[in-house]
């Protein structure tokens, strides 16, 4: 690893108890410990978080945009997975 190219890390922050960690950006650091410290300094200067995850960017696998049409197609055609697909008489309550 050359000095000029520390690995890239993706930063995820939980803003408060009960919420998911959310991607906020990225940074470069030589290892996970320093990535966490840098993430604190860069992304939580105004109490934006109570927990941070850092993941090396090369470890992230993503769907291919060019194929995303066919990749997500199966769910597009199954409208019966949504409650609005079903007809229920007006008088029925709590449903």
């Amino acid at each position, binding site marked *: 690893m050359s000095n000029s190219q520390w690995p890239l890390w993706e930063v995820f922050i939980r803003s408060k108890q009960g919420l998911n960690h959310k991607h906020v950006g990225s940074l470069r650091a030589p*290892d996970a410990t320093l990535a966490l410290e840098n993430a604190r300094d860069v992304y939580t200067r*105004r109490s934006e978080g109570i927990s941070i995850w850092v993941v090396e960017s090369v470890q992230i696998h993503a769907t291919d945009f060019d194929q995303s049409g066919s990749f997500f197609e199966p769910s597009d055609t199954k409208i019966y997975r949504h409650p609005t697909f079903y007809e229920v008489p007006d008088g029925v309550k709590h449903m």
Partner: protein
Amino acid sequence: MTRADQERIFNEKIAKEIKIEPNDWMPEEYRQTLIRQISQHAHSEVVGMLPEGNWITRAPNLRRKAVLLAKVQDEAGHGLYLYSATETLGADREKTIDDLHSGKAKYSSIFNYPALTWADIGAIGWLVDGAAIMNQVALCRTSYGPYARAMVKICKEESFHQRQGYESLMKLCKGTPQQKAMAQDALNRFWWPALMMFGPNDAESTHSDQSIAWKIKRFTNDELRQSFVDATVPQAEILGLVIPDENLKWNEERGHYDFSEINWDEFWQVVKGNGPCNKERLAARVKAKEDGLWVREAANAFAKKRSMKKSA
């Protein structure tokens, strides 16, 4: 998918205000324009720390010192968000920084003016950050997702930058006649360079049309400059300061302030590297990178040692 299909999908997204994301297909010129603009923006944040950093140890009291320190620290963070955004476009971060150091890449010409007095720090917050915010609020709606997200975060953080500058000038304006004169002197020196921050007139701006079409820029240089003048003139009146432009007056018909032509010779001189502090600023950045080398090496050595311990 053919190139024509890709281009059609890209154009449809732009038309429908759907953000372009890093893995999406985009025209090479769109990518290069963004890399140039975002890295220039990142460099401006980083070089922008220099005139203010110079005053941290000389701030008049602890409150002002803590505020200035926080502001400069924000600017380092903003530089980082923006460098990260250029990396999502495939730019090499170190190379973009080397381009700054070699003089190939530009940064906002405003930072080539010196901060001579404490009042300049107030004027920089009020006018320079004010102009930057005017530009950045518009960029929150830019078409490239990572850039837009960085702008949202930056705008949120920067609103205090302008307010603290204005507050600090207000204090001087309510102080002794000498303090007020100092504030007026700072306005006199920073007014025109602040207006230059919006770049050349629309007719002279080389990249404007395409950037507007791609929705990278949402307003033209002249539109943003006019908004800034309109917003700032009443603020100067409240301070009791006089804007150094004898032609400045409200134009009822246009619903805007009229103002004098900018001294474009000065603007181009500073852009070309002949401003009062160009050499000093670049030298400071190069020195910071060279002097920081041992820190980066030490961090690497420490990381290596720790990983060896872990695997042992």
